[in-house]
C-alpha cells in the first residue's frame, strides 16, 4: 500500500517536473518560435490583426530575397560583420595568448599593477569611451573604416581574453615547461608547442567569446561607420528597420541567419569543450 502510493507520488512528481520544464522552455523559446514562423509567412499574413502561430501558406521567398543583393543588402552586411568579427577575434586571441602567458608564467616587476589595471578595463564599459574614441578614430583618419571597428573590438575583448586564457594557463604545470626547456625549447617555442596545444579548448572559448562580442556590436559601429557599404549586420539591419518599407518576414529571416554563426559556434564549442565561457564571469 505504502509502496504503491510512493510510486504514485513519484510519478506525479515526475509529471509535475516535466510540466514545469516544458513551461520554462515555452516561455524561453517563444520569441524564437515567432521569429522562425514569421520568416515563413507571406507579408500579408505577418501583419494580420488575428495573428497565426503557424503560417497558413508556407513560403521560402524571404530567404530567397535576403540573399538577392538587388533587393536586400544582407550579404554585404554579412560579409562586413564576418571580416570584422573574424579579424578582431583572431587578433584578440593571439595578443591575449602572449599577455596571458606573461601574466601566468613569468616573474616580473609591475605584474600586480598590470593585473589591477586590466581588471579596471574589464569593468569599464565601452559607452564611457565613445566621445574620446570618436575623436581619436577621426584624428587617425580611420573614420568610416572597418579597421576602426576591428581595433576597438580587439581592445573591448582583450581584458576578458587575457583573464580567461590566464586561468587556463595557470592549470598547466611548470614541470612541463621545465622539461621542455631541458629539451632545448625556448620560451616562444614553448608557447607554440606546449601551451597552445594544452590550452586549446580555452583558446577556442576565447575566440568564440571575442567573435560574439564583435558580431553583436552596435554601439561602435553606429559611431564609426557612415557609408552603408561598410555597415555590419546590427547597424545595417537596424537602419533597414527604420525605413517604412521593411517586411517582417524578411527581417525575421535576416535575424535568424544573423544569429546562426554565433549560435552555431557556441553549440560547437559547447559540445567539444568542458567548462566553457558561460561558466565564468565572462563579460556580456
Amino acid at each position, binding site marked *: 500500500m505504502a509502496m504503491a502510493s510512493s510510486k504514485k507520488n513519484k510519478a506525479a512528481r515526475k509529471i509535475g517536473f516535466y510540466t514545469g520544464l516544458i513551461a520554462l522552455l515555452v516561455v524561453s523559446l517563444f520569441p524564437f518560435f515567432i*521569429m522562425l514562423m514569421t520568416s515563413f509567412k507571406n507579408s500579408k499574413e505577418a501583419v494580420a490583426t488575428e495573428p497565426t502561430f503557424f503560417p497558413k501558406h508556407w513560403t521560402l521567398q524571404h530567404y530567397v530575397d535576403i540573399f538577392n543583393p538587388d533587393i536586400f543588402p544582407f550579404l554585404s552586411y554579412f560579409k562586413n560583420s564576418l571580416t570584422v568579427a573574424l579579424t578582431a577575434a583572431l587578433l584578440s586571441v593571439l595578443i591575449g595568448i602572449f599577455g596571458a602567458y606573461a601574466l601566468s608564467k613569468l616573474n616580473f616587476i609591475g605584474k600586480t599593477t598590470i593585473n589591477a589595471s586590466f581588471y579596471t578595463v574589464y569593468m569599464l564599459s565601452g559607452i564611457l569611451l565613445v566621445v574620446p574614441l570618436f575623436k581619436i578614430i577621426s584624428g587617425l583618419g580611420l573614420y568610416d573604416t572597418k579597421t576602426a571597428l576591428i581595433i576597438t573590438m580587439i581592445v573591448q575583448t582583450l581584458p576578458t581574453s587575457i583573464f580567461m586564457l590566464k586561468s587556463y594557463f595557470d592549470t598547466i604545470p611548470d614541470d612541463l615547461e621545465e622539461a621542455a626547456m631541458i629539451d632545448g625549447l625556448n620560451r616562444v617555442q614553448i608557447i607554440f608547442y606546449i601551451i597552445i596545444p594544452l590550452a586549446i579548448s580555452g583558446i577556442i572559448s576565447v575566440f568564440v567569446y571575442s567573435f560574439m562580442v564583435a558580431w553583436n556590436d552596435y554601439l561602435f559601429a553606429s559611431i564609426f561607420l557612415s557609408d552603408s557599404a561598410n555597415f555590419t549586420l546590427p547597424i545595417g539591419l537596424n537602419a533597414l528597420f527604420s525605413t517604412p518599407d521593411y517586411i517582417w518576414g524578411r527581417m525575421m529571416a535576416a535575424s535568424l541567419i544573423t544569429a546562426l554563426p554565433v549560435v552555431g559556434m557556441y553549440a560547437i564549442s559547447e559540445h567539444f569543450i568542458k567548462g566553457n565561457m558561460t561558466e565564468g*564571469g565572462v563579460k556580456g
Partner: protein
Amino acid sequence: MKNRGKSDMKLALVLLFPSVFLVLLLVAYPMISNIRISFFDLPINPRLDAAFVGLKNYTDILTDVEFIKSLGITVLYMILAVAGSTALGLAVAIFFNRPFKFRKAARSLIILSYVTPSISLVFAWKYMFNNGYGVINHLGVDVFHLFDKAPLWFDNPVSSFILVVLFAIWRYFPYAFISFLAILQTVDSSLYEAAEIDGASTWEKFRNVTIPAIMPVLITIITLRSIWLFYMFTDVYLLTNKVNIIGIYLYETAFAFNDLGKAASISVILFIILSIVIIASRKRVKFNGNG
C-alpha cells in the same frame, strides 16, 4: 623557475607590449582625454573650434533634471533586471540540479536567448509586442483578457520600461543559471542529507546549505550584472526610444545634440561612480568561475 626574474622581465615586456599598448592607446588615453574634453564646449564638427568653458559642463549636468531622472530610471532598471535575472537563474538552476532525460539539450535551449545577438532578439520582440498585430496583445486582450485595452508597448514610457526590464531578465537569466548550476553541482549532497536528518524544511535547507555554498558566485553575478546593466546601451536603444537610461542619455548628448564636452563630463561622472564600485568589489569578485 620562479627565480629568474631578470630574464623574465625582457620577455614579459615583449609579450605584454601589444596588450598594454592597445589598452593605453584606446582605453587609458581616451579616459584621460574625457577629462580634458569635459572642460570644453566641443562641437562634433572638427572644423569648428573648441572653447574652454571650465566647470560649466559639470554644473549644467548636475543641475539638469533630465540627467537626474535618467540616473533614477537607470538604477531602477538595473535593480529590477538584476534581481529578476539572478532570482530566475537561481530558481532554474535548482530546478535543473538533478539528473533527468534531455537535461543537456534543455540546458542548451535555455542558453539560446543569451547567445543570440541583440539585434535578432530585438526584432522578434518588436514584432511580438507590436501594438496592432503583435501576438502578445492578441493573447493578452483577445484570448486571456489580461488587459482591457492593449498596452502601447513602445509608445508609453511606463509600458516601455516594463518591456525593457522583461527583455533584460529574459536575455540575461541564462548567464546566472549556468553559473549557479555549475556551483550547485559541486555542493556535497551529504550536507542536504545531514540537514534532512536534523529535520530541516526545504526553506531551511535552501538558507543554510544552498545559499552559503553559492555565495561567492552570487556576489560575482550581482556585481558584474549590475555594472553591465548600469551601462547598458544597445538592448534598450534598439527596443524603444521611450526609456532614457544613462547610456542612451550620454550617447544622444554626444551624437544627437553634438555636445561632446557635456557628454565627456557625463562619462567622467559615471567613471567616478564605477571606480567606487570597482574598489569596493575588487576583493570579492572572481572573473572566471573555473577556479
